[in-house]
């Protein structure tokens, strides 16, 4: 090609400048993309929103930490200890309980940890207030525990339909903690 065949300073400058311009144009194109992203991020409304979200997340973090500190069922605790602790709680005090564990696969990766709770003395009866306090404490002290079954029956088995029962009950309950499979 005659352009290259008759190379001189002017043509060298043209070639060099065009090549340099192309390189610079490519770099500008890259940088303009970066600047465009920065412009979007540095937009006052956008950055305020980002920082506000960050603060809200921080606030939520604090709340959850506080909630975690008051959680009856600690992350490291097992359910059995938790239930026994609640059974011995003031205004519950239902004595020793039998716990029968069981696991049930709910969906893939999710498992229900189940405990059936009975009084260790099958003939022992309890007043209604103690049982409801027990059920309430089981759920209220942990977000990870749900009572999934309650059976209550008047303790007096010979009670007739027309008779008024005294407030003594036998019970059986089941709690479930649904969690990810380990």
């Amino acid at each position, binding site marked *: 090609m*005659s*352009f290259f065949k*008759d190379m*001189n300073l*002017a043509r060298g*400058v*043209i070639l060099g*400048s*065009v090549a*340099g*311009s192309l390189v*610079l*144009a490519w770099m*500008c194109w890259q*940088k303009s993309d*970066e*600047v465009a*992203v*920065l*412009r979007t*991020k*540095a937009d006052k409304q956008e950055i305020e929103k*980002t*920082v506000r979200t*960050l*603060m809200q997340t*921080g*606030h*939520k*973090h*604090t709340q*959850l930490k*506080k*909630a*975690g500190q008051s*959680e009856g069922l600690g*992350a490291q605790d097992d359910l059995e200890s938790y239930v026994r602790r609640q059974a011995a709680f003031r205004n519950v005090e239902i004595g020793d309980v039998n716990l029968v564990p069981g696991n049930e696969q709910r969906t893939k990766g999710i498992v229900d940890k189940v405990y059936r709770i009975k009084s260790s003395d099958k003939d022992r009866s309890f007043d209604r207030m103690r049982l409801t306090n027990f*059920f309430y404490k089981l*759920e209220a002290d*942990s*977000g990870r*525990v*749900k*009572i*999934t*079954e*309650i*059976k*209550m*029956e*008047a303790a007096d088995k010979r*009670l*007739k*339909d*027309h008779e*008024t*029962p005294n407030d003594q009950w036998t019970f059986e309950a089941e709690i*479930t903690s*649904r*969690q990810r499979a380990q």
Partner: protein
Amino acid sequence: MARTCGIRIGTKRFELVVLEGGPKKHKVVASASGELPREGDDPMGAAAKIIADALKATKAPVDDVMVALDTGLGAFRTHKVQLSDRAKIEETLKFDVEGEFPHLTIDDAIVDFEMLDSAGESSLLLVTAVKKDDIKRNIDLLAKAGAEPMEAELEATAMYNAAHAAGLLVADKAQVLVHVGEHATCVVVVDGGKLREVRAIPFGAHGAASSSTAAPVEGEAAAAAPAPVDETKRAQQAAQRIRRELARTVAGARTANAVEAVLICGLEVPGLLDEPILDFDTRRLEAFTDETGRPDGSAGEFVVAYGAAVRQMGGAAITASLRREELRYSGTWERLELPLMVLALLLLLGTGVWYRFLGREQEQLSGELAFWRDSARNFLVPEAKSGRAGYVAYPSPDFVKLLDGFKNPENETPPADQLASMQRMLQAEVLKLEKDLGQDAEIQQPQSALTGLSAVLGVMDSEIAKGTRPSVRKLTSTYTVGRGAKGDHVHIVMDLTFFAEDSVTASQQFESFKRALRSEAWFREMEDKQSKSIEGGKGISIQGFAVDVDCSKIQTVKS
């Protein structure tokens, strides 16, 4: 020091001269000449080889070659146009002079011109027309020999340039320059140093031309061999005819200054220089001096090649251009070089400035984001020294480490990405805490049997307020996993007794309880059981009364 090469390609032979020096002062450093074969299978290839050998032997600069073609290839006319601008003349001339060259198809010819005179808006031109094919054939020959010429001209202008370079053209005299070729003789009338007229005599040292080809044609069969003629007789005939034609030309020449002499160069024709022509002195055109040096052999033969070399060196008075159409592209390049260079530099400068502006904007935006990042960091974590509580009251060690990392000036992570990193880590910790606390939004917790039972007993409690006296003997509340269209719910079964004045009133109160249940948003369905009067008729008893409750609706209603 510049070196140029001038080559004359004739119908049967070539001459070349290599010059070294400058336009004003130069020296002939080499010269060569030879016959061009017109016979054989590949006369063009053979001719190219001969020229290539000559170029090699003379160490000619093959990139700086000018060629002068046989005058017999061209046709000359003087033409007057009502224009003085060369560019405008260039645009229109070819079609203006079409009628003056009836033997040529104008599109197949190169039309060149030299401005002889210009007065006001009109110009007198010496127009030269040459077939493109003839030019191409000669150019191809030289290209094949490895020396494609930069330009091409006819012998006439090369001879004029040679005479001009030798200082033979004086201002107050007129001369007639003659170049004797193989089959054509070129006559140039110069008046006061300026070209006035050009004429081609179709008769040369070897007689009249048998074809217009100036160079052998590739694949062309050997031309019919001329009949053997007595050389002495032919030379006499050539001399006589050329002298006759020269006499006519000189007699017809209209010059302002007296014709000083007839200066002859080219091939030797015995008898041509013996006598004056119309009483005008006839002598050799001595283009070479002691200063320029002389070529080997007969100096007259090399005058045209010398003129071409001088032209290539930049010392020409006339610059004919027979490759004007071919070289228009490169000529355009040369004209555009400077503006293009400026444009390219401006482009480079422009893109450079643009890049700098973008860089500064990036720095500015990064600075703004860094301010927000620092501010966010200060507000997030508590600082014991200043007693400031942060939004994250209990930051994890990893989070503190991350924030401390951002304080490091060597950290090159952009501030916006740092903010995003902070948000990501905090969000991940929040999710982990939610999971630990059973608030994992991705896991749907089972419904509470206690909540469902409380809802039903709550309705019962409101009925008690209306005077109803229910008595629960047995109850079961069970969370049931939904199947199909029936979602998760709590199934409650109770054995009940409704005490009242009589069984009718008790039944009414039981119905009222059921209605109240049905009116609740969380109520799903009810399994009604038969009731029976209790002993004494003071109420009714229901065994296995079942209600399904959707606890998710209870939460919705509560919220």
